[in-house]
């Protein structure tokens, strides 16, 4: 088997077209990876500049009322990870800016896709585009006539007479071509590491390994499928036509059809419906029996009892701060209810899409690639959750200052100094660790592995029955 493998490689390297194509891919990967890193760095710089600019305004805040500051609010800018330079996932279509303020939970807005004319339907020319579209096609090109041409030229008979096992020959061909895909992957990874050497941590390395492994398995699927078809079909033209047809269906057709189907299976509400339901709960009370006016009266009664006084003016604290925080707490419950439902629905859609990998391994690859790069929907929802959690702490800090900072009820002109505002922590997004989150991708991993094993088994089975 080793000899056949070596012989295959020698054969490949004697082929000038192969050599030129390989050189082209190496150069293309180097340039594309480098451009991906540059683009990502520019975006990170822009994000950092915006973040600093907004924070500076907060730090320079004049002595003011904490509730006024809650309305002034802050902004969370969606950060780009290093691996965004390989696969940007959903980042171009989701918003980048989230306003964090009192009373309201806002939407993340200003997506890159909404800021210009449409350019590419398949995304930017990043390594993932080459990994997902071009390298598989290159592997198909290398593998489609690997056995058919041996058969057409009569070389196959000669090899078998010499005592070579057909099974070994087929598998040596699969692995010799697969290794080329792996080497191209490793090369792109090396370029990525060189340009980002200072920014790698254990999580990033783990993510990168996860990403390479996913593509590695997918390339094994593509190579073994092409060789399998080459084994089964009698001529190389039919073999190429069928393989390309499958490639087109997998990469172009099915992801869109599956995306549409999962949205129809578990539909999302329209924004109007969603907002109306939230507004209703916000005004009438989450269980429909607790109007906000009643809630305020209950809180007043409880607070007066707690401080053993008869009126709000006798309170040693500012009751307005307590009311606003109670309203925030209530708003958070409403948010949790509605957004929880929405996120569950989105996660259900994601799970169904993951299951579409059973008929289309490309979907599983896409999921794993975005997941490893930290740019899929799970990571986007995680950003939104962390930002909302921060907003709650941020607004509570301001409301607590209003309530317990020394002002009295009704004193809206009371101010607190700049040192307090400076002491409020800024929002910092913590990317989740892949070692904790890998189970979210279990379906994709299993599906991809099953495809690889099934195709290898099928090829093994067919190689015993192939007509010479």
């Amino acid at each position, binding site marked *: 088997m080793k000899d056949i493998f070596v012989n295959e490689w020698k054969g490949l390297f004697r082929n000038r077209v192969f050599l030129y194509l390989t050189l082209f891919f190496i150069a293309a990967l180097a340039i594309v990876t480098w451009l991906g890193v*540059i*683009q990502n760095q*520019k*975006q990170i710089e*822009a994000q950092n*500049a*915006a973040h600093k*600019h*907004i924070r500076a*305004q907060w730090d320079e805040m004049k002595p003011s009322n904490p509730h006024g500051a809650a309305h002034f609010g802050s902004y969370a*800018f969606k950060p780009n990870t290093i691996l965004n330079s390989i696969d940007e*996932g*959903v980042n*171009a*279509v*989701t*918003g980048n*800016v989230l*306003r964090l303020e009192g009373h309201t939970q806002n*939407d993340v*807005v200003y*997506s*890159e*896709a*909404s*800021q*210009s*004319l*449409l*350019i*590419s*339907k*398949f*995304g*930017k020319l*990043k390594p993932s585009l080459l990994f997902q579209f*071009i390298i598989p*096609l290159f592997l198909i090109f290398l593998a489609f*006539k690997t056995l058919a041409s041996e058969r057409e030229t009569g070389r196959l008979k000669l090899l078998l007479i010499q005592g070579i096992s057909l099974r070994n020959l087929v598998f040596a061909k699969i692995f010799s071509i697969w290794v080329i895909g792996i080497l191209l992957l490793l090369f792109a990874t090396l370029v990525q590491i060189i340009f980002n050497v200072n920014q790698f941590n254990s999580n990033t390395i783990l993510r990168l390994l996860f990403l390479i492994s996913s593509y590695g398995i997918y390339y094994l699927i593509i190579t073994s499928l092409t060789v399998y078809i080459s084994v089964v079909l009698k001529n190389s*033209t039919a073999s*190429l*036509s069928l393989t390309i047809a499958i490639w*087109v269906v997998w990469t*172009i057709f099915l992801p*869109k*059809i599956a995306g*549409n189907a999962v*949205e129809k299976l578990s539909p*999302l509400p*329209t*924004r*109007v419906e*969603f907002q109306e339901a939230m507004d209703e709960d916000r005004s009438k009370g989450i269980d429909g029996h607790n109007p906000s006016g009643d809630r305020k009266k209950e809180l007043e009664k409880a607070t007066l009892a707690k401080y053993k006084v008869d009126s709000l003016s006798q309170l040693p604290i500012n009751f307005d701060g307590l009311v606003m925080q109670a309203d925030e707490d209530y708003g958070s419950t409403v948010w949790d209810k509605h957004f929880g439902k*929405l996120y569950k629905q*989105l996660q259900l*859609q*994601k799970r169904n899409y993951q299951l579409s990998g059973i008929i289309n391994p490309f979907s599983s690859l896409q999921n794993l690639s975005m997941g490893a790069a930290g740019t*899929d*929907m799970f990571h*986007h929802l995680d950003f939104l959750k962390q930002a909302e959690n921060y907003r709650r702490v941020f607004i509570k800090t301001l409301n607590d200052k209003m309530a317990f900072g020394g002002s009295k009820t009704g004193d809206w002109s009371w101010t607190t100094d700049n040192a307090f505002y400076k002491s409020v922590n800024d929002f910092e997004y913590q990317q989740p660790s892949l070692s904790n989150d890998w189970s979210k991708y279990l379906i994709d991993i299993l599906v991809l592995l099953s495809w690889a094993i099934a195709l290898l088994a099928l090829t093994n089975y067919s190689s015993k029955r192939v007509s010479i």
Partner: protein
Amino acid sequence: MMKAYHLFLYEYKHFIRSKAKVFAFILFVIASFYALYNGFNLQNKQQETLSSIEQKKQEGITKILSWYDQGKKGPEDRSWIDITTPFWALENTPTYSIKLPSPLLPLGIGQAEQYGYYKSVTTWSSVYDNDMVEELANPERLVNGNIDFSFLIIFLLPILMIILTYNINGLEKDLNFDKLIVIQSGSTQKWILLRLSFYSTILVATVSVFILAVALLNNSLTSEVFALVLLNTLYIIFWTLVFYFIIIKSNSSSSIAFKMISIWLIFCVLIPGAVHQLVSIKYPANYMTDYLDANRKEAYEIYELAPDTLSVRLKNIYPDLIKTKHGQDNLVDKEIINNTVSAITNQINKDAIAKIEYQNKIKNNFIASSYWYNPVSFVQNKWNSLTATDYTAYQDYRNNVQKSIDKKIELQVFECWNRKKVDKKTFENYLKILK
């Protein structure tokens, strides 16, 4: 002429005998129906949402009219509201600015899912408000996109052409009887071009029927529809010529197929992807800090200004204010100023938005400058422009929203400065003005 006719007839027989080609063509037709269904679906969904908004607006108006009828000044739990003043009457007037779905939306969803298409207009609104965002959608589905009709034409139709034509002259070369073609037809090149034309004609006819059918169904047989037919024809001719050159320069059907799919990848995926990447490097995604500053920091600074200063700034925006009752008073009424200060923040927002739109314009010009080597993006944006689902269509919508905001603010400012008393009749007049 007769030769061409016979060749077309020969190709027709070849086509109907090839199960794979007929299957691919039928699949394309089915996919077209599915894509149009998706487009109609989105159109209906948008129309339903807009109907519910219209209903909500009417309910709001009815409620306010009933307050006038009953002599109420506002809701019972909000004693500070007084709809007999222009400020509160206009603050409570439900005003919406909407973008009706384009009648040609089923032919191309374009960027319709990237933008909002309805907006509640208040005197504090701006065109980059939070409620101007797109409908709730799965972001991963947005990344993958829809099987919409324009996607089928721009990206999948060339693949169908590959399936239909990759063995023209290739099969003859594979089976070594290509010399016979020279003997029989005289010119191989003409023979190839005529065979290719057969498929191009079928595809032009099929797509044109779909375009015209949608136009007729939506009662919008406009010049845009004929421009779409023309654009589609030119696009098919473009690919026909590209494939023609590949066929005459190749030696076998597998070589033709591989070159065709590679060219498809270059034109449809790699070049647009490379331009997209270049645009992102040159113009990274905008975090809109100009607008955020205007909306927050600068707006807050306004509240700290003295009424006299604000009065002057308001008069700078609307010079005719000096002719109003309050404009002719020597004393500045703080309440009137506070009630009309939104005109100043609107002006600040507009200035910031003009900068953002200008930055986007530069970005779009850069994209347009790539069209000469990026024909697929050109066709895509031209198509979206004809179906009114591109960036420009939504920019026009933003401009309309801004006009609506300006109108409401101007009405409020002048009515407040004229110290108008609002009754039912005046309110109904407001509704007419803001319609």
